[in-house]
């Protein structure tokens, strides 16, 4: 088999990203079950003192490490792989990318110190006037800026490739990785404004007060597109890699590209849907963002079709029959496939719940309730995370040159994640609809009626199953990376061919200008007037508090 090979240097570079990502996942995942057990009436936090002071220090660690660090490091590593492998050339400036990576590592360490010292128990949304130690804000800023630097390295590489290949369609995995990075850089402008103009100078004592409402607007400018930054790398795998792993092809190269462009355009101008119940945002703007949010559902539906069609094509080629019978012919013994199939299935339900969140006034029933963590454990904690686990079942062997240790553990791990998440997330959704608040040690809350106990117990049960699954995953990863079983044959990189001739993909789907300007224009329309108004009426009246 003849496939492009990364140099050992490049494999190591990608591998370091994955290593930090998994380290964060391992540490952060220790706290997930602790929150879940607390809901079920078993509070283990008192036993963790003096190491971990409170439920909220644990929850901050869980949110920051799992939702921000695991994702960002895995994604930059995976995108680096996609750029090199997709374009079949080295990075233009490998040192620039290395600088970006080390900035992220330094940022992580800088943020970790105050979190571990209980000086930043502000959760991963850090809503002011809760005030963390400046190291927390500075560290997060460095992680984001480091990822930007890596992105600039991608752009330079792409421009060089384009010069060398003027008339070729950009290979899909590189194309989609570039869009993911551009989306990230477009949307993180909000959080950069929040931290650099308010939170960092405030935490350093340079300004006394902040405007919490404006901070929320800045935060959610970034906060929702952030989830597409998490999700699109999983989509790259579902669109372009999973079909190959099931013996098929990518159903439609054209529509895959179109949906990525739509995600770029539609992902950012919709952050007010996280602020439907905010007092300082006019309902007309909330309503506009509601419609824009709903429209993101469209490329998601396209993705569902193309991915399932590609899977079906592969399964039928392997002898699958019947309207649904073909599903049994998918390679369920391959942990990478099983993990991603469950990720996709769970994500489908997450998407439906997301439509409820996005629906303006329907959101009143569930805003800030347990429904929300129930929802995002289906999306980021399964759709994304379980997909990344699936990807790592081939990517880690590839970058380490080792054989995957006990693949059947990977299959069991994926099943356990699926089952555990059903218990956990279903119960969280129901509790939310009953009115249970999110971010609350419910085992301790005085207003919880006894009828909720069976649901709270299932939250704990789900947490326990997820803990076992996470433990098995990391065991497989460690045993693979540090084991002695060197791979005897070349490890295949699964990149699917398009069923349709790629040269049929219209040229306008490989041109940046219209899409990029369109994305910026839509952001200006959807956010410009409100930003001008909220910044114009800024009220710096809130001093900081540290009530934990």
């Amino acid at each position, binding site marked *: 088999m003849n496939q492009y090979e990364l140099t050992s240097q490049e494999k190591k570079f990608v591998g370091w990203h994955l290593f930090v990502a998994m380290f964060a996942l391992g540490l952060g995942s220790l706290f997930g079950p602790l929150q879940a057990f607390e809901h079920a009436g078993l509070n283990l936090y008192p036993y963790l003192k003096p190491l971990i002071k409170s439920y909220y220090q644990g929850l901050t660690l869980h949110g920051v490490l799992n939702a921000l660090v695991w994702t960002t490091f895995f994604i930059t590593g995976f995108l680096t792989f996609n750029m090199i492998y997709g374009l079949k050339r080295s990075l233009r400036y490998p040192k620039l990318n290395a600088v970006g990576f080390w900035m992220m590592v330094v940022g992580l360490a800088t943020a970790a110190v105050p979190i571990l010292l209980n000086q930043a128990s502000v959760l991963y949304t850090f809503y002011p006037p809760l005030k963390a130690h400046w190291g927390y804000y500075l560290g997060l800023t460095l992680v984001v800026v480091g990822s930007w630097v890596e992105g600039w390295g991608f752009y330079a590489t792409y421009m060089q490739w384009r010069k060398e290949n003027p008339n070729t369609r950009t290979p899909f995995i590189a194309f989609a990785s570039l869009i993911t990075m551009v989306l990230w850089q477009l949307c993180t402008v909000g959080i950069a404004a929040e931290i650099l103009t308010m939170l960092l100078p405030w935490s350093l004592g340079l300004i006394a007060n902040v405007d919490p409402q404006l901070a929320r607007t800045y935060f959610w400018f970034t906060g929702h597109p952030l989830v597409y930054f998490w999700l699109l790398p999983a989509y790259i795998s579902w669109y372009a890699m999973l079909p190959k792993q099931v013996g098929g092809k990518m159903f439609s190269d054209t529509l895959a590209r179109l949906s990525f462009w739509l995600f770029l355009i539609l992902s950012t101008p919709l952050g007010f849907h996280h602020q439907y119940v905010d*007092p300082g945002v006019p309902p007309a703007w909330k309503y506009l963002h509601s419609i824009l949010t709903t429209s993101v559902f469209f490329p998601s539906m396209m993705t569902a079709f193309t991915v399932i*069609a590609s899977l079906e094509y592969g399964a039928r080629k392997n002898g699958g029959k019947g309207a649904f019978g073909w599903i049994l012919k998918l390679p369920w013994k391959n942990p990478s496939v099983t993990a991603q199939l469950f990720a996709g299935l769970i994500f489908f339900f997450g998407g439906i719940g997301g439509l409820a969140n996005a629906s303006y006034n329907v959101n009143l029933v569930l805003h800030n309730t347990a429904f929300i963590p129930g929802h995002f454990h289906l999306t980021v904690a399964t759709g994304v995370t379980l997909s990344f686990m699936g990807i790592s079942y081939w990517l880690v062997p590839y970058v380490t040159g080792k054989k995957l240790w006990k693949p059947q553990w990977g299959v069991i791990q994926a099943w356990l994640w699926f089952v555990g998440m059903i218990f956990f997330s279903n119960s969280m959704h129901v509790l939310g609809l009953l009115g249970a608040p999110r971010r609350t040690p*419910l085992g301790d809350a005085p207003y919880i009626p006894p009828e909720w106990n069976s649901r709270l117990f299932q939250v704990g049960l789900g947490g326990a199953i997820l803990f076992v699954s996470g433990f098995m995953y990391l065991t497989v990863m460690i045993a693979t990376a540090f084991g002695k079983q060197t791979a005897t044959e070349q490890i295949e990189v699964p990149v699917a061919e398009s069923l349709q001739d790629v040269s049929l993909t219209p040229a306008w789907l490989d041109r940046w200008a219209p899409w990029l300007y369109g994305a910026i224009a839509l952001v200006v329309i959807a956010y410009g007037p409100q930003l001008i108004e909220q910044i114009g009426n800024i*009220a710096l009246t809130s001093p900081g508090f540290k009530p*934990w």
Partner: protein
Amino acid sequence: MSAQPMHIDPAERNWMTFSAVLLLAVVAAVAFAAFGLGIQVPAPESRVDPKTVSTDPNSPWSNPGVREVAPGKQYDVYILGKTWQFMPAEVTVPVGAKITFYVTSMDVQHGFKLQDTNVNMQIVPGQVSKLSTTFTKPGTYNYICTEYCGAAHASMFGKVIVTQP
């Protein structure tokens, strides 16, 4: 723009049409609930200084509680959030009256979710959150803080007691 046509499988075209119709139906349903049934979200009401909102004698939150606007018909309820309690922690209103809640915070952000109603608001220091509801059944309805506000956030709640006049 290239004149090259876009190749789309007929089944996928049908699916995309179905998706578009489904989404339009969702948008229409939400619009009907918002503008037909009047189920609305909070709108900018007024702004306050969180440092003085509980002490300034001109601030309604220096003396939070129920104000009778029209006996048996209309009541305004002023509630102040602070770590980790609502003031007052209990209010009494009659069934069938229009009750409007004005809630703000003197310190960090809080949440205000009134169980079994459509009242759900983010409480942001410096801003006043306002929503109305009408209770159709007597009973006790908790208002629960739904935003993380520090160590004892889980204990922060209050009660609306709805009485038969």
